[in-house]
């Protein structure tokens, strides 16, 4: 029997529900509480989540037993590991941006983000991506900092 998407989704929902329910029971009672209390609705959501997760898991289990010999089920997870890794690569670019933007400042960091994402998505290391990074960073800086007055991290520029 192959574990299908419904089973993984259902089990994930059950785990999320249990975790949420645990924290919902930790919500402190206060003298100001109404009869339902701040934990009432979260507890209801948690219980419902666990129940629905179980229904989806059982549905997935029945589906897996019925379709155990079908080719589509066997191919369900083919190549998914690589896909997750490629997606994680892009996420890593975002995490690096979060780490460098307070130090390097918005203008430099956003330029680097543009260049890194473009190259990662297949543009190649050409003068064009450099131009896109420079032009894009300048345009975004002009829109958010000059036009909209957003206080972006100045980074090294605050020294000047």
């Amino acid at each position, binding site marked *: 029997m192959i574990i299908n998407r419904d089973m993984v*989704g259902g089990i994930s929902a059950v785990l999320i529900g249990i975790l949420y329910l645990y924290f919902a029971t930790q919500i402190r009672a206060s003298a100001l509480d*109404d009869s339902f209390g701040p934990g009432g609705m979260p507890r209801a959501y948690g219980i419902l*989540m666990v129940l629905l997760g179980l229904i989806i898991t059982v549905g997935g289990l029945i589906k897996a037993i019925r379709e155990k010999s079908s080719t589509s089920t066997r191919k369900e997870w083919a190549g998914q590991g690589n896909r997750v890794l490629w997606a994680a690569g892009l996420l890593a670019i975002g995490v690096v941006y979060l780490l460098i*933007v307070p130090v390097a400042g918005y203008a430099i960091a956003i330029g680097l*983000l543009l260049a890194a994402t473009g190259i990662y998505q297949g543009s190649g290391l050409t003068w064009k991506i450099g131009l896109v990074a420079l032009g894009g960073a300048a345009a975004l800086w002009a829109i958010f900092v000059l036009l909209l007055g957003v206080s*972006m991290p100045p980074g090294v520029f605050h020294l000047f």
Partner: protein
Amino acid sequence: METILLSFEALANPAIFVAAMMGVTWGILGGAMPGISPSITMALLLPFTYAMEPTSAIVLLASTYVGAEYGGSIPAILIRTPGTNAAAATVIDGYEMNRQGKAGLALGISLYSGVLGSLFGLTMLVLLSKPLASVALAFTPPAYFALGILGLSVIATLSGDNLFKGLVAALLGLMIATIGTDPVTGGNRFTFGSSDLLSGIKPVMIMVGLFAMSELLMQAADRSPSKQVKSSPRITFPDLKLAKRLLKPQAIGASIGTFEGVMPGAGGTIASFMSYNEARRWSRHKDEFGKGSPEGIAAPETANNAVAETALVPLLSFGIPGSNSTAILLGGFLIHGIVPGPMLFQRSGEVVYGLYGGLLVAAISLLFIGMLMLPVCIWLVNRPRPYLSAFIFALIMSGIFSINNSLFDLSIMMAAGVVGFFMRMLKFPFLPAVLGLVLGYLVESNFRRSLVLSGDDYSIFLSDKVSLGLLVLAAVFILGSIGKRLLDFLRKPSLSGTKGDMA
């Protein structure tokens, strides 16, 4: 009739024209930036209004609101990123049309429907302000709770093939909505000692993560060289045949938008989702919804633009700002020493008539300014995919940061993107999550307030006539959707799985 004549008279002032057009242009720009909400776009203009003459200042702010509500649909259609909360429903069919190379038509429909919605909402505002104002006053906490439940009843339709997965997604949204300060007691919930979580998680962060960030992650994951479909950089308006077909969803959107707009706190998001749901229910082309249906754009866009006008009813009649945007507008009034409320028409009638005239100019100029700006937007999204992905990533990182000037918000958005990526992989729909997120606070706070008011008597939800009516309507919608699912399952079980992408 006198009101209409006086509003037209106000148009003799060229400053109102200029203020309306500048407001619409600024609003479209702000609304099109993910993370920059209509209220932020308006707030940025507040300092400039100090030196302006009162009528022009109010027109400038109100026109910005109109432009921003429309502007949110541009990134929703072009890059799967709702610029405003209300534009989330437009993503479904708008982005699908874009993927089919019909971005020009999708934007044309959204623009044309937005203008119609604005004009209809303005007509309702001018003609029916007084009767509509009494609707706003009839809404008590039980009625607001019932309104939230009515909004959540749409989940059954937005769940795609698997209703249980839709419900799990909705619960996920409701759970995220509980993070922050408790709406009744003020205690902290799920904040884990973090001050960043005290004010909760803004829906736009989760929406941008679920829609845009997850799309970027999917594109990164899919390394096969797929052909990018490019759209003609021209705005195409619907032909007569399509325009006739769009009349029904536009009428649905206009009616729901008017109703939702006059209720403080309801907002454009519920209106656009409910309009989408109803347009689908009453459509002859139900199967096209979720696969690039023009009706799926027309209904929500008409609704959220009608809301932008009718949301002024409680503000002008009672001085009640029903949303952040109308609160900013209230600030604009107060800056000039004008107090909205029952005496507004007697004390500052000229400002109100000027506002009506200015909103008419704003609604019409939305069409022309949109036509000038949209081809540039289409040109931008026709750039090669690596450059486009890089620009979208940089844009959403900049936009989300600008909400609270917080890097923590960016990590929340990226986490939502990861959740969205796995939801797509495991075939869970997004839209119920968005609905749960937006309505969670409304439902919980009003449910508990009602119980406090009634001394824990649950019959308050049935004794309040508005609440009862809305709950009955919600029950009809839910049972109808479940009944239809059952019928479809019994009639043609082999066709399950053919529905459009509701993620």
